[in-house]
């Protein structure tokens, strides 16, 4: 072997993680690029017509009124895109793909920080580095992430990435940063609310930051509407725009919710079903409150160590419970917990089988939705499978916490 060759190999060995990250990043793009021309029904019916309308009404000038049902911040992004001479579909997808990378990076940083249970980012072992790299690769190359952004043209990775980064800041006790980023996540999508039970849990459990930090969320949300206010929108529209996000009339919509054991009643399809929805909705809502209350009590008893992997386990369980049991959930609302399943699996190998099962199930779901074909099983059966996964996770993660934290001393 020549000296130059040896030097190159030594350099590669020394910078292996960095090179692997670059390679994974390139692979991520290789997976996404061929999907750029897929026009999903959502893109055809909503995203592209919104873009066309905004362009027709003068780009930024169109921010003076509501187009579509997304937040002002997302409308602002669309308005900016109208000035770029690139296919609108590609632009939508590029924005989401950018956040795919940010999401994968956030998950890697989260894993790196929590790997050895210290919660800090000081120089760590190669094992921590490898775990972070694996998380980055798994997130970026997850079929769910790839399909969501590059094929479907959806923007779930935007709020999910911001939620993950807000978790990173929260667990490092940089509270102002955490709440500003969370406010930004809310500024894009109301789905960021799924991480709120975890923030509330950390507030009650750690008792290290003031409740006033929570005020930053509506403050940032309101600030996110500034481009709209400049163009003449009312200040409260920065928040009221979210009312349109809430689907009504169905307990669940093409999502394997816990409530799929009740018939999937379409709003208005018949009066009886429509009336029943409004009678069942409070039941579903209060049942979710009770499930979350029980889970939070169990977590308080289990005393999770928020400096280590148990932090992300607690977050995962709370997000999964919120989305699975809340009424009116629809197709991709589980994106955040599906992403959190990755760091949980990397940090706690016992959860690799349920994580795999979860991602395969959701891949079926995405494939069915994109192909406009029905799943090979009914939504109630799909929901039953998710219930089994939920119980599986619960037993592994809670049992682990209680065993390690409550009974370890005996």
């Amino acid at each position, binding site marked *: 072997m020549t000296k130059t060759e040896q030097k190159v190999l030594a350099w590669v060995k020394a910078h292996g993680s960095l090179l692997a990250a670059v390679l994974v990043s390139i692979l991520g793009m290789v997976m996404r690029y061929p999907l750029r021309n897929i026009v999903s029904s959502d893109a055809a019916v909503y995203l592209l017509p919104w873009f066309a309308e905004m362009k027709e009404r003068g780009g930024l000038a169109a921010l003076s009124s509501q187009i579509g049902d997304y937040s002002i911040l997302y409308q602002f992004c669309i308005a900016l895109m109208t000035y770029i001479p690139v296919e609108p579909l590609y632009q939508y997808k590029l924005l989401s793909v950018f956040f795919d990378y940010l999401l994968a990076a956030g998950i890697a940083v989260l894993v790196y920080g929590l790997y050895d249970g210290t919660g800090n980012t000081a120089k760590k072992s190669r094992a921590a580095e490898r775990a972070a790299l694996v998380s980055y690769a798994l997130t970026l190359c997850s079929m769910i992430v790839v399909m969501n952004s590059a094929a479907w043209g959806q923007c779930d990775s935007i709020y999910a990435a911001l939620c993950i980064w807000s978790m990173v800041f929260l667990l490092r006790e940089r509270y102002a940063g955490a709440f500003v980023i969370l406010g930004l996540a809310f500024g894009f999508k109301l789905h960021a609310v799924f991480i709120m039970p975890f923030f509330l849990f950390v507030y009650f459990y750690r*008792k290290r930051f*003031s409740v006033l930090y929570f005020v930053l969320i509506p403050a940032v949300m309101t600030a996110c509407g500034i481009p709209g206010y400049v163009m003449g929108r009312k200040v409260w529209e920065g928040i009221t725009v979210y009312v349109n996000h809430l689907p009504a009339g169905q307990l669940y919509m093409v999502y394997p919710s816990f409530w799929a054991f009740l018939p999937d009643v379409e709003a208005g399809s018949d009066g009886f079903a429509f009336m029943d929805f409004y*009678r069942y*909705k*409070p*039941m579903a809502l209060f049942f979710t409150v009770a499930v979350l*209350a029980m889970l939070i*009590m169990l977590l308080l008893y289990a005393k999770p160590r928020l400096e280590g992997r148990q932090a992300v386990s607690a977050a995962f369980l709370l997000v999964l419970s919120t989305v699975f049991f809340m009424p009116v959930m629809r197709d991709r609302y589980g994106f955040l917990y599906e992403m959190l399943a990755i760091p949980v699996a990397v940090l706690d190998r016992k959860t690799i089988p349920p994580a795999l099962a979860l991602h395969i199930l959701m891949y079926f779901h995405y494939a069915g939705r994109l192909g406009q074909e029905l799943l090979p099983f009914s939504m109630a059966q799909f929901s039953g499978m998710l219930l089994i996964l939920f119980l599986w996770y619960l037993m592994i993660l809670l049992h682990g916490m209680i065993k390690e934290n*409550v009974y370890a001393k*005996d």
Partner: protein
Amino acid sequence: MPKIEKRVLEWIDAKKEWFFVTAVTVAALLLRFPLRNILPGGMAGKAAAMLCDFLLALSAAAVVYLFEEDAVWKKRKSVLCYAAVLFSLHVAFASAIWGYGYSLQALFLIWSVAALLSGHSMPALGIYGVAVGLDPTALIMLPFLLYIYLVKKNFPILHFGLGVIPTAVMRLADAYTGGKLLGWYRHAAGAAETLYTETASFWAFLDGSTEKYREYAAAAVVIAVLVLAGLGLWLGKKQQHTRELFFTAFLFSAVTAFFWPGAAAGRAYVPEILSIVSAVFFPATFPLAVLFNMISIVLSAAALYGPDWLPLGIQGLSLAELAVLVLYVAFYARYPAGNYSKRNK
């Protein structure tokens, strides 16, 4: 964080069980209230049934508090049990939608089992008689009571006679107002017209059970008796304390409900409550308890909206319940491995 805020949080933390119970009680009321109009029915009956839900949840919590051996988890488990029973959707559906009094009967049965396991056989069997008088489905606990009689040998068989008195009084009162004195027993004894009705049952695998009832009823009773006898013989060899005997009560009642012919919707109600109490005693059985309860919830919803969309069909759900029961037996065969309390001793 300001000092005052920290103090408030610490106070909330110290009183968290109290806050939790208050919150779930309010949420349980708010959950039930909108359900009352889904089916028409007497509001007084539904309100009374809902009240019994709360009493049942309190009783289950009290049982856990009394019999839990793990001092660390005694109080914690009892508040969790209270919430779990209160938020069992089958409990909520039965009272708020259907207006059924299952929770009243379950209340008496829980007290009866608790009294029996505390060594108070006379009041236990008296209370049991009231439960049977209220609804003959309470007879699904009879195999367990006989098992305790045979295994513990600490009370005479004549005490069973005490159970007959309240039942007879209640039945006579019913007969006085026009009811049939013994008609309702025939149903419980397997003399119904179908092998199963809207419930997961071993006999659901026989297609067209209505026509086949006459031919199979005797065989079904014999099979049920044999299964229960086998269960009793197996359990009789195990060292069991009060918590374990509660689990045994669940196992006997669930197996009876599943194998006894003529089972109708609601027969699994008491085993479901006992499965929740068992899950609180033995957390490893929690997933099984959830699945066991889900089967009834699905069937309850199917009774409201028709069986067309029923996931897995009645045979599939029966197979699922059979699998859950087998897993319960497998868990108990391995018990006490992996039990928290044992590790904590």
